[in-house]
């Protein structure tokens, strides 16, 4: 499979299929990135497109200094920050706001409430790790912070969630897949 970085360089040389392939690879992940962070499904779709519009717009200046996915999430993070600034100045309208669709409402409610209790920086780091599955170094690059800060905040946020998890009552219908306390690799981890 052609690497993201090779596709980006081919796109830079004018290859439209390379852009199509990059879009195909990252459309879903970027949509998920925005969808988990925004109330509006439409804005999540818009910003996914805008991320690629920025890529297209700036392709001539692109330099392969980092992984393409880090580059894409860096753009996405800036668009998200702009979106949040915009919304902080004007309340969202009802027509654009709808709950995030999911298969397990109780589990998602717990997750959203738990994440909301974290400070913004810890929440962002945790989400980039768990959902975007970025490495510590990639998160550091996207957020422009030190890798050690990523690790310490990630650890702190997970401990906070663990502590929230402990006293939680477990109604029969709340969790579809019971969690077993066996050793399992965390997402994005490949075990030899």
């Amino acid at each position, binding site marked *: 499979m052609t690497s993201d970085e090779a596709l980006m360089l081919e796109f830079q040389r004018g290859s439209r299929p390379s852009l199509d392939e990059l879009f195909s690879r990252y459309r879903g992940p970027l949509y998920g990135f925005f969808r988990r962070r925004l109330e509006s499904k439409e804005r999540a779709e818009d910003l996914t497109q805008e991320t690629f519009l920025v890529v297209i717009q700036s392709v001539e200046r692109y330099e392969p200094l980092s992984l393409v996915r880090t580059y894409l999430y860096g753009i996405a993070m800036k668009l998200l920050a702009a979106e949040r600034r915009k919304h902080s100045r004007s309340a969202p309208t009802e027509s654009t706001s709808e709950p995030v669709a999911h298969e397990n409402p109780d589990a998602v409610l717990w997750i959203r409430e738990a994440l909301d209790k974290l400070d913004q920086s810890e929440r962002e780091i945790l989400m980039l790790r768990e959902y975007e599955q970025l490495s510590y170094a990639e998160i550091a690059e996207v957020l422009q912070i030190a890798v050690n800060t990523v690790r310490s905040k990630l650890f702190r946020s997970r401990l906070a969630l663990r502590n929230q998890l402990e006293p939680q009552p477990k109604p029969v219908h709340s969790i579809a897949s019971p969690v077993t306390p066996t050793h*399992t690799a965390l997402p994005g981890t490949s075990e030899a």
Partner: protein
Amino acid sequence: MNMNTSTHPIEHEEVMAQLEGELPQDRAAVVAAHMVSCDECRQLAADLTNVSQRLQGWQVEIPEPGSLFLLLQSSGKRRRRQKDTGLTAT
């Protein structure tokens, strides 16, 4: 978690980093060897894994394949930028 780093040879964060493949190889081996005999670290690893598994319960429904791309294609802005950047179909 009351482990004291002055008496405990492994930092708590290292247990997490080890799980995620984020430690240098030599340090990962030290942490892995330690965990064989440390109930507390194994429990911490299980707790961290548990948290991650719970977080994976939040899955997002992705729009139908191609729908975003069709929207992108129909975007006037994209067409203008495509023209500006001289994209060609190869």
